[in-house]
């Protein structure tokens, strides 16, 4: 049983290492990565089922008794995030098989991709704040190389901004961890949760909370710390853009939610009010930035920022329903956002550009691609009965329950603007006739694999809408666990080194 939590970290590590060993044999790397991602998905689903049926799973590696040693914990939220990662990873791998160019494959795309997934899983599953820092660095260093791999001018310029701001965030994070240790004398998050509750100096705890908010805020791209994101996410190949846009920023959001539901509960009125308003401003600025864009992927990048705002807003509401809505919304957003990036890759494959002004006529030439885009776009905007509607419904209802009318109004207005900018992509890239001078290519080899990935995620967006009831039950479990940290603490500290 104990090895189950380790597998989502261990499996990508082994596959990544095997890919390095098979450096010259790209075909072998492809097969290994595909097999690894299928295995990862299977493991993550088993883990989710185990957590749903038996409650929070925790394990102490290295045989030290908690709060020492290496703690791995899977509560409902972690398990849902790992399972979502499993789905998206498999889709991106399939899409990469069809779309990644040979030089990038030969220069280590697959090993890096696997290590990136290992870092993401580690961040989701660790129960130790310093290990969280280390996992963040693991995923950051692989994302740095993935972003710059290929060495095009735009990639390098984007990578410099991405690297700089993420390293500044890491310095903040490390400093915050150091002060936290000095104050509470522990790094285990469950242990910290108990110790901070009776901290001698509540003012210092609040200061520290804000330091963590800044560190994770940069990594999660909240207002006013998001500027690195739209400057870099549209530069690498589309499969890399998709995994960054879909998954990576959500790791920052995950970390924010984790520390602000487990550690910093001394002064909820103060910290969560800041979070709530930061969330509202993030939503609005993100979508306003998106409306002004004419580059397919840059427009989507601004939408990432906007949707991070919804998640942060849910954390700011801080009720069980809001947390459930946030979890549901994060999963929905990972699927849909990834899919929109993948569709932009298909339009690039056909017309060789991401510029919306030069695109056109895609619906007439490829109606099915148009329908797939429309499903994801409407889901992102929150049109029923697709997945986005239910996440937003829960968040809005949670906001109305605690009478935060201004923030709820902002959220609804942002939804409308989201719909508007999605309509803009639809009108420019799909509906209007193809402008003169834009070349058209045959889709070429691999288009089937690319479309396979897109269809899978589009179907999931529909399923998450139609079967929202049973899935929302899982999100509610996650929300309740987040709002009541006692079982989490008990699960971690109860484990007495039995490995």
């Amino acid at each position, binding site marked *: 049983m104990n090895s189950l939590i380790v597998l989502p970290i261990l499996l990508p590590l082994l596959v990544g290492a095997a890919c390095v060993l098979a450096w010259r044999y790209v075909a072998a790397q492809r097969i290994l990565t595909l097999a690894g991602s299928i295995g990862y998905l299977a493991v993550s689903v088993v883990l989710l089922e185990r957590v749903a049926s038996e409650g929070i799973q925790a394990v102490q590696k290295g045989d030290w008794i908690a709060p020492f040693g290496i703690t791995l914990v899977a509560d409902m939220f972690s398990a849902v995030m790992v399972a979502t990662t499993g789905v998206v990873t498999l889709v991106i791998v399939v899409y990469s098989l069809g779309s990644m160019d040979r030089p990038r494959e030969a220069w280590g795309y697959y090993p890096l991709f696997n290590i990136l997934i290992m870092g993401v899983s580690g961040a989701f599953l660790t129960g130790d704040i*310093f290990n969280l*820092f*280390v996992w963040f*660095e693991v995923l*950051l*260093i692989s994302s*740095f*190389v993935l972003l*710059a791999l290929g*060495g*095009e*001018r*735009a990639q*390098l*310029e*984007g*990578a*410099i*901004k991405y*690297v*700089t701001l993420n*390293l*500044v965030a*890491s*310095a*903040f994070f*490390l*400093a915050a*961890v*150091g*002060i936290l*240790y*000095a104050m509470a004398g522990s*790094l285990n998050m469950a242990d910290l949760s108990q110790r901070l509750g009776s901290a001698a100096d509540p003012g210092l705890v609040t200061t520290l909370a804000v330091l963590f908010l800044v560190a994770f805020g940069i990594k999660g791209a909240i207002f006013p710390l998001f500027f690195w994101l739209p*400057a*870099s996410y*549209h*530069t690498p190949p589309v499969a890399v853009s998709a995994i960054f846009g879909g998954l990576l920023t959500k790791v920052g959001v995950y970390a924010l939610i984790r520390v602000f539901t487990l550690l910093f509960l001394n002064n909820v009125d103060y910290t969560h009010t800041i979070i709530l308003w930061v969330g509202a401003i993030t939503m609005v600025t993100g979508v306003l930035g998106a409306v002004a864009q004419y580059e397919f992927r840059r427009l989507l990048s601004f939408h990432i920022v906007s949707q991070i705002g919804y998640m942060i807003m849910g954390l700011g509401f801080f009720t069980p329903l809001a947390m459930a809505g946030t979890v549901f919304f994060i999963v929905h957003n990972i699927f849909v956002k990834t899919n929109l990036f993948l569709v932009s890759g298909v339009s690039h494959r056909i017309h060789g550009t991401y510029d919306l002004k030069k695109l056109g006529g895609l619906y007439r030439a490829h109606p099915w691609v148009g329908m797939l885009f429309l499903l994801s776009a409407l889901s992102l905007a929150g049109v029923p009965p697709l997945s986005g509607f239910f996440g937003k419904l829960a968040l809005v209802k949670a906001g109305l329950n605690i009478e935060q009318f201004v923030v709820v109004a902002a959220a609804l207005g942002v939804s409308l603007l989201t719909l508007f900018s999605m309509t803009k992509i639809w009108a420019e890239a799909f509906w209007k006739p193809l402008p003169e001078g834009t070349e058209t290519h045959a889709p070429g080899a691999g288009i089937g694999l690319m479309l396979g990935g897109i269809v899978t995620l589009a179907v999931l967006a529909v399923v998450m809408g139609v079967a929202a009831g049973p899935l929302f039950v899982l999100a509610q479990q996650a929300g309740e666990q987040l709002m009541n940290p006692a079982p989490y603490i008990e699960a971690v500290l109860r484990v007495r080194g039995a490995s």
Partner: protein
Amino acid sequence: MEALLAIVIGVLYASGVYMLMRRSIVKLIIGLALLAHGASLLVFTAAGLTRAVPPVIPYGEKAVTAVADPLPQALILTAIVISFGVQAFAMVLAYRAYQTVGTDDLDDMKATDT
């Protein structure tokens, strides 16, 4: 000693941030290195400075009193290794960017901003 180290940390942070705001890409990397050093030293100082009592239990004894806490040093060691690797990457990235763009001026690297 704490006061002195606090001043050193402050100077490291201030000069790091100042370097980050310069236009040259080389100074940007120096700034990142200074920030990382500042953060490491902050962890070291915040956890408390204990002189001349290494955390070693003599053979045959069980309990020890007031030894230096070894954990912050382990944390810093990890952080230094990570920042070493990341900064090595940043230098290569900066050099590649300089080769490709043909300048080390960050104000000329705006192709992705519009």
